[in-house]
């Protein structure tokens, strides 16, 4: 197979994606291995290799002597075509063995538009795509990641889903598989046992009944599976497994650097943000532990950059200590520090000074909405003054461009809110021009980037119907016309992908047929604009008698049973609904450090008598 492959590699773009052999990739002696695990990322090598979760689980699984975890990515179209023509199945990058030779095939579901790639990868690996067609225990297909909070559109294809954080449950599952394999269990027996592990959701063990109008009547557990599946969390971030090295790619990937995970969860409670709710409760990692991990990673990889990763890096309580120590290390060793996800209201001069010593690039802020009223609706909890003072600090610090992120189609949004976005950008341009010590001869650029809001499960906006495509386009066009300054650069996105995202985010398992049909029609790599075929998706929906309107645009009533109602992510439905009502009155909720809002995620904590933050 290697020889066959070699002939193809020089005929495709970026062959470095398909050859493995990178520093820190792990090769094991097959005769010593009992469980072979294929970690599959349903997108290209460059995207998948940037993903922290894969690095953690790859290190964790390979730390077990009995298990060998390999990496598998979706081949780009030219390679796929060549592979299909020459009858080369999708293979693990470490061994070059076909996917169908692996025991466990684990996908990570990071975004809805990668669903069809899951099917395509299974098919390329000579594995039947439907769970029911895989009779044996071998080729057990599992999936984790944020989209698993509503995995129903993939329920017919995946044998079991893993809810929440994977460090513990993945090992528990693999241990169980090892035992089952040694004792020759059949697949059913394994699934029944696996369903008893906390956080494991076996979709085939849940029967879903529908009302005539298509909404769900009831979801019933069978085969002894729990009526509610609760997500897993890691109790103590400081003593959980973290890899001492990363696989270092040969080719350029999206993020090719050391990553430190400062914390999980977020104190903010922005109502549109799914990550802000499904990763609760907040758990921070000790700064000393982080420093050690950062240095270890740099030494084992040779990376020239460390990224401090979290949902809101400036909310990490040990940020000052951490930066002080890391900056010394980074200057001495010529390593850059990068701090994505800084919040606008606590972006201090002190912090900017520290970031500036490291690297000077553009600054990006995310006000998300253009007017104070709408920012209160989404509970962003920043004011215009916060935005202005951050921009002022940036301009005075020598920056001449800022980038602002917004969403369109938020609940209660009117055309006045859309105009508010442009007004805000205009005022920032003015701010720069009134600056006394601005650099001579240098103009300012304010980039306004708008995306389309997608309502997600486990957020207060899960009841909200997404704006129709026509409404979004109308808003985008109006904003474009409303701009008068050349200093404002307006960027907006084709919103058709957001429509499909909205369908899947809150879709039920009847969509499995749609996913299958669309894939058969040639839909995959849907997140890549040039390969997104909206009409084929609409055809598939039609053929299944389903509509976009029902899933994406319909407003839902409190009390409706959602496709994910049997899944528990800690935050209670009662809390989410309270937030939904407050949102409609434009009332804000203080962050978790100011006052506990009683979201319910503290129930998941074993420590501190259920208290998440000090």
């Amino acid at each position, binding site marked *: 197979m290697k020889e066959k492959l070699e002939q193809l590699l*020089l005929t495709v773009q970026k062959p470095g994606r398909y050859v*493995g052999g990178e*520093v820190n990739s792990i090769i094991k002696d097959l005769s010593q291995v009992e469980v072979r695990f294929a970690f599959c990322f349903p997108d290209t090598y460059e995207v998948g290799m940037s993903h922290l979760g894969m690095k953690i689980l790859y290190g964790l699984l390979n730390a077990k002597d009995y298990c060998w975890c390999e990496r598998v990515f979706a081949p780009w179209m030219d390679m796929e075509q060549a592979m299909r023509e020459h009858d080369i199945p999708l293979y693990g990058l470490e061994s070059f063995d076909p996917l169908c030779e692996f025991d466990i095939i684990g996908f990570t579901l990071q975004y809805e538009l990668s669903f069809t790639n899951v099917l395509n990868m299974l098919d390329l690996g000579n594995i039947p795509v439907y769970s029911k067609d895989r009779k044996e225990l071998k080729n057990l297909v599992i999936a984790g990641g944020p989209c698993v909070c509503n995995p129903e559109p993939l329920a017919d294809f995946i044998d079991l889903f893993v809810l929440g954080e994977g460090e513990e449950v993945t090992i528990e599952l693999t241990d169980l598989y090892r035992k089952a394999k040694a004792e020759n269990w059949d697949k059913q027996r394994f699934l029944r046992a696996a369903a008893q592990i906390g956080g494991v959701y076996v979709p085939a063990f849940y029967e879903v009944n529908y009302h005539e109008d298509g909404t769900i009547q009831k979801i019933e557990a069978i085969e002894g599976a729990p009526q509610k599946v609760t997500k897993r969390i890691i109790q103590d971030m400081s003593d959980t497994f973290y890899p001492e090295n990363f696989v270092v790619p040969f080719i350029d990937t999206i993020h090719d650097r050391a990553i430190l995970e400062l914390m999980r969860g977020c104190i903010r409670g922005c109502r549109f943000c799914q990550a802000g709710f499904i990763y609760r409760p907040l758990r921070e990692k000790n700064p000393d532990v982080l420093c050690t991990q950062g240095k270890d990673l740099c030494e084992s*990889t040779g990376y020239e950059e460390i990224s401090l990763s979290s949902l809101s890096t400036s909310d990490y309580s040990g940020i000052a200590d951490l930066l002080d120590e890391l900056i010394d290390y980074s200057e001495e060793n010529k390593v850059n520090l990068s701090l994505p996800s800084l919040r606008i209201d606590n972006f201090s001069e002190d912090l900017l000074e520290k970031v500036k010593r490291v690297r000077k690039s553009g600054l990006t802020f995310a006000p998300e909405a253009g007017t104070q009223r709408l920012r209160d609706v989404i509970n962003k909890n920043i004011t215009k003054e916060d935005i202005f003072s951050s921009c002022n600090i940036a301009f005075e610090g020598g920056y001449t461009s800022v980038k602002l992120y917004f969403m369109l189609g938020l609940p209660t949004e009117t055309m006045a809110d859309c105009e508010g976005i442009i007004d805000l950008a205009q005022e920032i341009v003015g701010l720069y021009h009134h600056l006394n010590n601005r650099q001579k001869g240098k103009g300012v650029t304010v980039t306004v980037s708008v995306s389309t809001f997608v309502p997600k499960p486990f957020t207060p906006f899960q009841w909200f119907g997404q704006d129709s495509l026509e409404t979004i386009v109308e808003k985008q066009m109006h904003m474009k016309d409303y701009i008068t300054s050349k200093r404002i650069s307006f960027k907006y996105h084709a919103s058709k992908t957001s429509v499909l995202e909205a369908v899947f985010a809150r879709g039920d398992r009847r969509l499995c047929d749609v996913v299958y049909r669309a894939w058969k029609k040639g839909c995959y790599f849907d997140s890549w604009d040039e390969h997104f075929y909206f009409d084929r998706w609409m055809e598939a929906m039609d053929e299944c008698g389903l509509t976009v309107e029902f899933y994406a645009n319909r407003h839902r009533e409190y009390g409706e049973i959602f496709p994910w109602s049997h899944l528990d992510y800690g935050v209670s439905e009662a809390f989410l609904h309270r937030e939904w009502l407050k949102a409609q009155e434009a009332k804000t909720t203080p962050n978790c450090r100011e006052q506990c809002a009683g979201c319910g995620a503290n129930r998941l904590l074993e420590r501190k008598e259920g208290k998440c933050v000090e």
Partner: protein
Amino acid sequence: MSNEAFNPMNTAENNRLIAQMPNIRIFYSKKGRAKYISHLDITRCMQRALKRAKLPVWYTQGFNPHMYMSFALPLPLGYDSECEAMDLRMTQKMDFEEIKERFNQALPPDIRVIQVAEQVHKPQEIAKASYEVTFLCKNPQAFSTAFEEFSKVDEILVMKRTKKGTKQVNLKPEFSILGQEQGEGFVRYHILTTAGQKNFNPTLLTDAFLEQAGLADSTEVKVLRKQIFLGDGSIFQ
């Protein structure tokens, strides 16, 4: 090489000392999976290996300091090589064998340091390179007859891409065949080409032949760079 003591407190003096340090030339092989690493990516790959090896590499002193590193003759993607040359500078005097050992430990297995030495020639002096070109084909006898027939003519005109666009060139004076061997399912040629400022890759020749002979789809070509030479025929060091 300077024997003066390195003083970490005196930057200006140190820079003067470092400036006096000779350029180090590292010869390495790049084979197997490493042949899929493009020239652009090899720079990053080497930088990270040097960092992992904790070698005291000199950084440029500009606004955005980076590791000083220079490659003699870029290798096309997909070629194997046993004679790649990379130049860099150290901030401290170091034993060449130790550099080789530490660097090899940090490098991916398909890139191996062969020799570490002081730079002798300037990369601009490079004039020729030799390659081993292997054709995997069904009928080696017929193949070699056809290839030799092809290379005998006075003029082999092909289109060559350059920075200024595509233009027609005659390959004939840029190549010479040094030797040939044959075996079960392959023919191998030792080819010397013009290299350096004016550079010709063997692929130009093999592509032109395979296309003319209608063998492009049925033949696999493997190229191994063997040696780099100066104008007078001596080996680049």
